[in-house]
């Protein structure tokens, strides 16, 4: 009877790697199907992973790019914090932004997975909680100036011991958040996922022996590292730079200049953010963990986008940045809207590296998740909070027009919210959900994709909104003669008359029948628009995506008489 031991390593290796991916995917399914927060179950704003006993990521579900680099930093911080004081049946909780985390809303649940009294691996689940307390419902005040306004922080606590909940932690949590039943439901869902991981890893260790599993982890990391080094070696050595502007921090509209210098030397990449400004007053700062994620996302895109991700791919990478900058914020700088900052770190690399491998990149995109919070009480008096990241236009590639209405780089397998489901759940009516054709896109031989327009009519008397939109002034870049894309904006059309336009806004009172209109921008173009093929222009005109005048003015296209 054939068995694992008789088969040489590469076979066992392949089998164990398949099992790792199956396990993180299973964790994801359990989370999506049992969570209580729309932002988790509908929008899928969470991710799961498996790490070695040293805290090196070996497998990650298809969730969100933001967590690409945070898992390892978070777990390593917990290992340092707890040392040998971890026991079988412990489950840890952390949401500290400064020790590898992101913002207080992201709760990381980490379970050490013991086999024969020794830690074989860690399972992690990070999910965005609907509300963790703080100064505003949803916990993300766009004008917060300190982390103390952004809700409860639990920086590495045992939420379970010996597989039983620690009631004190649950009481603290329930007392400090606005919707405790949802928070506790989501905590249960997260814990279910890390337990699933525990069972699967135990099965693996029972079948192949824990030492074989550990060897497979090491081999996986080493072979990914080797692939990464080979890919980097094939790139031309040199120093590449880019600059960008962040449109305001939520407290002021002042532009924030950011920069990167990338050095490719043989099989290494160094991304140096020295020269970026100190942390700003408002919450678009990110801490070092999120910076790591932002950089790794683009390095993975450059090297091998489809291969399953793990820490090995990033061993040839160094990220340099002095402490206390907008990308390496420290306590008590606010980080609530950290992804509005960290996306620019990604885009700096993206912009700088695109010429090295145009087949892997696109022109600039709408970038900002354009998250809007609408909260209040419905006509029965029940409170509601509706959070939603918005989709937008991506840049063109050398071969194809940009993607329309796609989620921004910082998220990933992130869905928009069903109109029918929203209307059944919240006192909101969606009046329109369409491609933002009137806003246009960056023209080019290949044009950018279109953003979206989403209009909410508010159907409750007690409501307010806040939002933080980036790329409201600094437009998505074009490449190789392609034009820049278009801007994001939030409009409020008052039932009583009047229209106001916003980007990052801390508080808006909303009256019944007021309209909240979310408008996201189109991506940048690639190549000279005058070189665009007539058939493509004709198709855009026919589909109502490009007006005839625009076709003539920008693309030099005159329709044949018809």
């Amino acid at each position: 009877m054939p068995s694992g031991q008789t088969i040489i390593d590469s076979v066992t290796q392949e089998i164990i790697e398949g099992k790792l991916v199956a396990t993180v995917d299973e964790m994801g399914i359990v989370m999506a199907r049992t969570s209580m927060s729309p932002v988790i179950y509908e929008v899928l704003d969470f991710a799961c992973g498996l790490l070695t006993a040293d805290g090196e990521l070996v497998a990650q579900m298809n969730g969100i790019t933001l967590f690409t680099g945070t898992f390892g930093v978070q777990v390593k911080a917990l290992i340092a914090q707890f040392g040998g004081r971890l026991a079988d049946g412990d489950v840890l909780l952390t949401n500290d932004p400064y020790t590898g985390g992101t913002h207080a809303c992201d709760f990381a649940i980490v379970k050490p997975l013991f086999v024969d009294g020794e830690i074989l691996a860690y399972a992690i689940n990070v999910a965005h909680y609907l509300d963790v307390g703080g100064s505003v419902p949803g916990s993300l005040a766009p004008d917060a100036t300190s982390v103390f306004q952004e809700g409860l922080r639990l920086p590495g606590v045992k939420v379970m011991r010996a597989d039983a909940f620690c009631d004190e932690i649950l009481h603290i949590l329930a007392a400090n958040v606005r919707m405790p039943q949802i928070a506790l439901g989501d905590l249960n869902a997260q814990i279910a996922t890390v337990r699933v991981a525990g069972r699967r890893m135990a099965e693996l260790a029972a079948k192949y022996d824990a030492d074989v599993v550990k060897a497979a982890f090491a081999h996986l990391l080493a072979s990914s590292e080797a692939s990464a080094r080979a890919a980097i070696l094939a790139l031309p050595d040199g120093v590449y730079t880019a600059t960008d502007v962040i449109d305001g921090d939520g407290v002021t509209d002042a532009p924030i200049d950011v920069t990167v210098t990338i050095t490719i030397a043989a099989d290494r990449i160094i991304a140096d953010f020295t020269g970026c400004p100190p942390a700003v007053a408002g919450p678009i700062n990110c801490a070092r963990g999120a910076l790591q994620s932002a950089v790794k996302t683009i390095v993975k895109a450059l090297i091998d986008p489809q291969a399953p991700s793990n820490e090995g791919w990033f061993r040839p990478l160094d990220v340099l940045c002095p402490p206390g900058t907008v990308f390496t914020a420290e306590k008590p700088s606010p980080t609530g809207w950290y992804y509005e900052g960290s996306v620019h770190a990604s885009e700096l690399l993206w912009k700088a590296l695109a010429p090295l491998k145009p087949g892997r990149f696109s022109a600039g995109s709408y970038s900002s998740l354009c998250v809007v919070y609408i909260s209040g009480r419905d006509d029965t008096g029940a409170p509601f909070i509706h959070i939603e990241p918005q989709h937008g236009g991506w840049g063109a590639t050398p071969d194809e027009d940009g993607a329309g209405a796609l989620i921004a780089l910082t998220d990933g397998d992130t869905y928009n919210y069903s109109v029918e489901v929203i209307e059944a759940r919240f006192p909101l009516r969606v009046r329109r959900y369409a491609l933002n054709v009137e806003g246009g896109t960056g023209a080019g031989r290949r044009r950018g994709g279109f953003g979206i327009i989403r209009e909410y009519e508010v159907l409750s008397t007690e409501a307010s909104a806040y939002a933080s939109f980036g790329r409201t002034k600094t437009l998505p870049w074009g490449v190789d003669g392609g034009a820049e894309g278009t801007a994001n904006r939030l409009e409020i059309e008052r039932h009583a008359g009047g229209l106001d336009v916003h980007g990052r806004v801390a508080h808006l009172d909303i009256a019944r029948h007021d309209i909240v209109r979310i408008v996201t921008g189109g991506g940048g173009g690639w190549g000279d628009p005058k070189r665009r093929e007539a058939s493509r222009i004709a198709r855009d005109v026919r589909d109502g995506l490009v007006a005839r005048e625009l076709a003539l003015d920008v693309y030099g296209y005159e329709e044949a008489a018809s």
Partner: protein
Amino acid sequence: MIRLATDVGGTFTDLVGYDERNGRLFTAKSLTTTQDQSEGVLNAISASEAADGLATRDVTFFAHGGTTVINAITERKGVRTALVTTAGFRDVLEIGRGNRPDLYNLQFKSPEPFVPRHLRFEVRERMDAGGTVVLPFEEADLAPIIAACRAERIEAVAILFLHSYANPLHEEICVRLLAAALPEATVCASHAVSRQWREYERSNTVVLNAYVQPIIQRYFERLERALMARDLTCPYYAMQSNGGISTFDQATARPLTLVESGPAGGVAGAACIGRILGESEVLHLDVGGTTAKCSLIHEGRPTLNVDYKLEHTRIAPGHPVQVPVVDIVEIGSGGGSIARIDTQGRLRVGPESAGSSPGPACYGRGGTRPTLTDALVAIGIFDPDSFAGGTMRLDVAKASEAIASIAGPLAMSVEDAALAIIEIAHASMINALKLVTVQRGHDPRDSVFIISGGAGPALASRLGRDLAVKATIVPPHSGIFSAWGMLAAEPRADFRSTWFAPLSHEALAALAERFSGLEKEAATYFAKDEDVPIRFLYQVEARYRGQEHGVFVGFSAGDTVESFSERLHAAHERAYAFRLTTTPVEITTMHLEAVLEGPVITLPAQSPAGRTLDAAVKGERRVYFGKETGWLPCPVYDRLALPIAQDILGPLLVEEATTTSLVQPGQLLSLTENGIMVIREAGRGAR
């Protein structure tokens, strides 16, 4: 009187007939005709007439499974389709859900919609989530749409209005007006295909339904004419994706229900074998040439997939459709799957397949790359001389040569490399089998494991042992199991609708009333009086307040809040390992499964005469079981002569025309009186 089924697959069209008068079985194969699949069907019938004397005038029941619907979709060869939708929402079909599962691909694009923007039209109208009219239907908006459809020579129109699952009034008005104005087009409204919420998923469902409707209509018309010309006049049924059958007319109204027609036949067959064995929990695996498909039968019924997506992968969002489809997990490991060494030095098997041309290296048709079939030949499981009933001689040298191409770089012997290929295919099958069982809260140890397909029985006993199933089953006709399964399927319809209410005494009473309304709908669907034997199954999706996704649990008219809650808690705990007993419960969806009871195929008792171990022995072959065990001599038996109800200790091989089964050392094989092979672990004793 003969019941006849034909299953059109990628390469072959299989035919199975069963004469109810004498239990006689007819089987035939013809090459699939891709242009018009009905030709291949008629060729198979001709072949059976010529070889076995099938008399078409004796056929009283005809079931048909095919790939016309799925092919039209995957090849983008549907008709010119328009979409009419609520004003403000024509881009919903193109926007989709906007997710980017290919996380690090900065050139990712969502799949193209099946209706381009200039053929998506808007009408002013609006319902709210409760089904109340917010804005009346604006009939005047249709005039320019009708003109455009005529000018664009539209062949099918799909209609999707928001919240039509709650109130279909506006869709009904629109269908009536458009059907009258566009007599040359088919017109299809979303509520007629799905009563579930989520506008993108329902749009996509109605659009794909419209996109293939004229094609399936013309196909069935052609097939009917041809069958009648052959004197084969009886009710014609199509195999549906839900594991049941429907008349051609019913299928034409909702062609998307045929999307997974072929694999569903195998699932129906597995449910039938389970019934014959008295087993309600069945795990089924069908190993084809390119892929393996697995599914679960729970409480005697195939499990349905709650969110089925066409063309979905880990990195592609695919096209979700809201039609009942048996929950099939498909993986890229089949008999023709090619083994290779990747850039990181790892051995991979599939998803690339040698198919039937050139086929595995051992076929000797020019294939040089090693496949799973080559591996099975190299370690002695497949006999080069008796493969496919001796119709095709396999080339062992070519198989070994192909495997040597990977054995060298792996520094292995040919037989170890062959075993490694099998090991990897085996592991991905185990992952898929666990996906439909363990990950859905079912324990494979409670199930029997039925395996079919050409290469399936060669792998069955190993898989069964690793899963620790109650027994591993190799059914008769394993190589044509989908077609056989169609004869085991009954007419079935599923009525699923979104209906939201907090759990209460009143809500349960309202549910009971709504279900009896659906029962009447079912009776009308089958066009039968209410006293015909329709078997109903009542299921309700419920969740904890705050959750979006629920779990399906049974419902009975006598349910109380307590009894229903307890059932939900138990189901939730089984699926997700926790229960929230203090959180209020909400009902979101009701599902009525209606099955029209009728005769189905049975497996006649085999005569014990002439069946002895000695009569069954054909010879002996050495099979490689790995470095530790080495090569073991295995007796080779002929399935048709195996004695009934006699335990035979492995290792051994059993051969039949379409496949070969391997029984591991330490396992017992026994043949039931119906000719089903049952493999159990020797230590655990027989039941």
